[in-house]
């Protein structure tokens, strides 16, 4: 029987990152997918990044992941969202040519020497002694493994809805992994259903672009990954249009034909990315909703109308679209639809996304109730990192809410579960001033190097950068007096006194690029690095205020709650608290404090009991 230490099931964004990180760490990985040519396919919006999501892309990239560089290879439009706000909430986003992006992902997969792609349908898991021992394919082949990572997206028990029609499958034109879903249900995993939707795809040649506002790609030459350079492709523009009263009228008249309203779909969809039916129904007073018309590629006329996901019948979709400016003649190539799918309750997973009840089995991506490529990729990275660390008998990197959005997401998922598809938002990260998209490498690449999951190119790049950073830091530590500053052409009065250069940056007219120009900071310093250090200085006072809070957090993290911690035995905990805690299984007091609805009293009771419990066990 063939054997891989790690088998990854599913070739979407979670599966690719899980498989590749294992391979980067030198572990042999088998990636089982129904269709090898679909590895890295973008099933919904051909865009990578965005608010909160861009942070995840940069973090995955800081671990030498696939997503960021593939996005740069495929990018045909760059836009830094939220640029008018503070830099900690900037959201780097690109639109990618589907073909170029997919090919870039597959090229990275093919380049991993210890990664094999196995074409086939994973039909069942092989279990031995309460652990995962292998995977059985639909043709009966069995492959042994120590860890299996399920990255099956919406393919588990997926049902598509469009108007009065329903289809079984994960994506239009592809089958659903029904047998595997049935087995997971039998294994008594806590499962639930969610729904998501996608808009119709339009033929760009039938859109009247001339009457619409253009949105060009950014002029600044930033990239998703610091290892990418410049622009790989010609950049195209997007356009913006709006729904209007007539379109709303058509939708409203046909709401009863939408499976969302006819009762065919019972599952909860995302509140922050509602279907156009939902928008009309819930924000009835609005006279229009923006639609971003996003070209899907360089050599395809397909256009993705962002903002109008729908599951109305095909004829209604066409009718309301043609009521909209610029779309009067539009041809729908592929109508929109809604997908209802199974997901595993992520509260049954540990903080590395491994099922508590079935060691060796990990779940990553949409199967855990999240939405988005970026969220999926980050989870794949987490599961793959851990599975490979176990195989190699190493410690996985220390991720926590104060160092990464990745940890924020995993912590949220595994503690709170999901009631709607989980999407990353910067508001979820309480320490976001220190978690900027542009300092992801500084935050995480050292951890990645220690975990052994970066290739030589990244390591070399990071070392050069770390040295450059150290040079700037030492330049900023040097003391200067007012007279010296004036001699260099800066406005400085004598009452400022002698102080380190970093403190001089608080004075008007003195910023890092001015200091660089004056030669006080090494002239060869890369502008992105200088910008990052400048923001560090800008946010430093606010971050310093969090120090006490972080000490508290870390102290509460030290109060461990063992996996078998008897919540039922804690005096003073109400049944409701016991139930919430038993389901979330926090592994520290800090985590317990984040479980929804846990009262201060419950925390106090836990702390008192945890002290006694662990003392008595230690004795």
């Amino acid at each position: 029987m063939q054997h891989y230490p790690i088998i990854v099931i599913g070739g979407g964004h979670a599966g690719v990152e899980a498989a590749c990180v294992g391979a980067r760490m030198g572990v042999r990985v088998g990636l089982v997918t129904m269709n090898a040519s679909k590895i890295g396919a973008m099933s919904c919006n051909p865009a990578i990044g965005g608010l909160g999501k861009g942070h995840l892309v940069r973090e995955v990239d800081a671990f030498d992941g696939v997503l960021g560089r593939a996005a740069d290879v495929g990018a045909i439009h760059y836009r830094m969202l939220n640029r008018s706000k503070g830099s900690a909430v900037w959201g780097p986003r690109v639109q990618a040519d589907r073909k170029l992006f997919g090919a870039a992902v597959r090229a990275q997969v093919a380049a991993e020497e210890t990664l094999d792609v196995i074409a086939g349908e994973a039909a069942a898991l092989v279990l031995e002694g309460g652990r995962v021992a292998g995977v059985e394919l639909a043709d009966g082949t069995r492959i042994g493994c120590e860890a299996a990572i399920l990255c099956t997206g919406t393919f588990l028990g997926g049902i598509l809805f469009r108007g009065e029609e329903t289809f079984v499958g994960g994506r239009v034109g592809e089958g659903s992994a029904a047998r595997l879903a049935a087995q997971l249900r039998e294994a008594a995993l806590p499962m639930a259903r969610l729904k998501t939707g996608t808009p119709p795809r339009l033929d760009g040649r039938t859109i009247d672009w001339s009457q619409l506002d253009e949105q060009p790609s950014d002029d600044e030459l930033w990239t998703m990954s610091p290892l990418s350079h410049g622009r790989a492709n010609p950049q195209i523009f997007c356009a913006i249009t709006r729904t209007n009263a007539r379109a709303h009228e058509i939708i409203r008249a046909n709401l009863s034909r939408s499976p969302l309203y006819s009762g065919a779909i019972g599952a909860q969809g995302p509140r922050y990315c509602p279907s156009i039916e939902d928008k009309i129904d819930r924000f009835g007073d609005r006279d229009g909703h923006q639609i971003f018309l996003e070209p899907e590629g360089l050599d395809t006329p397909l256009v993705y109308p962002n903002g109008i996901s729908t599951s109305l019948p095909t004829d209604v979709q066409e009718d309301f679209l043609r009521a909209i400016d610029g779309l009067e003649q539009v041809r729908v190539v592929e109508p929109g639809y809604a997908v209802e799918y199974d997901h595993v309750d992520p509260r049954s997973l540990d903080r590395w996304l491994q099922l508590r009840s079935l060691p060796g089995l990990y779940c990553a991506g949409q199967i855990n109730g999240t939405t988005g490529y970026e969220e999926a990729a980050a989870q794949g990275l987490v599961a793959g990192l851990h599975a490979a660390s176990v195989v190699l008998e190493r410690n996985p990197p220390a991720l926590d809410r104060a160092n990464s959005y990745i940890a924020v997401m995993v912590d949220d998922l595994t503690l709170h579960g999901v009631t709607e598809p989980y999407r990353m938002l910067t508001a979820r990260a309480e320490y976001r001033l220190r978690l900027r998209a542009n300092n992801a490498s500084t935050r995480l690449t050292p951890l990645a190097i220690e975990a052994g999951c970066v290739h030589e190119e990244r390591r070399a790049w990071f070392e050069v950068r770390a040295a450059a950073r150290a040079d700037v830091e030492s330049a900023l530590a040097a003391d200067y007096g007012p007279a010296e500053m004036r001699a260099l052409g800066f406005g400085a009065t004598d009452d400022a006194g002698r102080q380190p250069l970093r403190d001089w940056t608080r004075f008007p007219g003195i910023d890092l690029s001015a200091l660089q120009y004056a030669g006080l900071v090494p002239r060869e310093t890369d502008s992105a690095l200088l910008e990052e250090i400048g923001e560090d200085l800008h946010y430093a006072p606010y971050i310093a205020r969090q120090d006490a809070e972080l000490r508290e957090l870390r102290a509460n993290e030290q109060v461990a709650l063992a996996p078998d911690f008897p919540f039922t035995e804690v005096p003073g905990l109400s049944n409701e608290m016991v139930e919430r805690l038993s389901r979330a299984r926090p592994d520290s007091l800090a985590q317990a404090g984040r479980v929804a609805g846990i009262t201060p009293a419950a925390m106090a009771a836990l702390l008192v009991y945890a002290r006694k419990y662990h003392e008595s066990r230690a004795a």
Partner: protein
Amino acid sequence: MIRVSGPRAAEALTRLAGPLPTPRRASLRQIADPDRGWLDEALVLWFPGPNTATGEDCAEIHCHGGRAVIRAIETALERGCGLRRAEAGEFTRRAFLNGRMDLLEAEALGDMLSAETELQRAVLASSAGGAASSRLAEWREEVLAASAAVEQELDFSDDDQGDLPPAPWRGALEEIGAQMDQWLATPSADRLRDGLRIVLAGPPNAGKSSLFNAILDEAAAIVSPIAGTTRDVIERPIALGGVPFLLVDTAGLRGEGADEIEQLGIMRAEGELGRADIILWLGPEGEGPAEALEVASMSDLPGAARKGQGAFHVSSTTRDGLADLIAHLVTLGRERLPKPGQVAVSRRQKERLADARESIRRAAGEDDLLIAGEALRQARHAMDAMLGTVATEDMLDALFGRFCIGK
């Protein structure tokens, strides 16, 4: 009255007083112990948890007050039912652990239980009863709403939802800030608990000790002993007109020439002046600390110095003028201590409130939404700490520590 709390309350009550009475209704029962026979006739009440004072099953036995009776019932509860005496503050502690009260209420209750004057009780009652907590919870909701408005602008601005008009949030913050300022302007509950410090100061033989004793004679003594009275600074907790004071006599203040021991006493005396709320200055007019009340003592002696307008002339021997001085002290005390209806929180709580206030001020005036959002988050964190939502070892030690030394 004997109160029983915990899972065996029902069993204990049944054993001593027969079948459980209707919940929350007083019923007259014969209290008897199978091993010891008839003990008393008493009103008993039964409170099934969790909606009780402690959150647990509770029983009350309103017995006759004699010590022997109480001791007999206690013994029956301990030996026959396996119960034990509550530790200091344990009922409050259990109420906190069972979610029946938050930190703010628990602290106020702790202070109220040790209240010795009507003013202390009246002020603390509203905090202990949850009035302060519910106000704080309202503020927290408002701050949360402001946070949500800021986050909406931050996280959705480039999405479709972004063309929703931004919700006004700065105005609400300024209003909350003004309300917080009122709490902050109220003297802390610590002063209320410990009493306003009246320090008697002046050179040796100025009559400080005589005046000290004369005021003590007029005051209702507060019994609780204060640690550290065996110093050359003598303190006595007293109540004047229902207002709690701490009367402090200091070693005489003298310049050079004092011996080493005296010097030490003088340094302590100077320290006392710094901590004083009210200073009675018995030395030469105008030579005392600023803001001190000028008092001319020994006014009955013919050669006694007269002081100018606004000074108090007191004779500790004849008590002339003493009533005027005391009336003035009571007036000052009422002004400087929280009044009934005002919310008085402990100094520690005030520090957190000041943090929250400062964060709200920063948020309201900050143009960078990101920084405003962070300031609001810190405001919530400080408010959560006041209610005890942020559980830390520090918070628990502080809370349970005080009950161990208090009531």
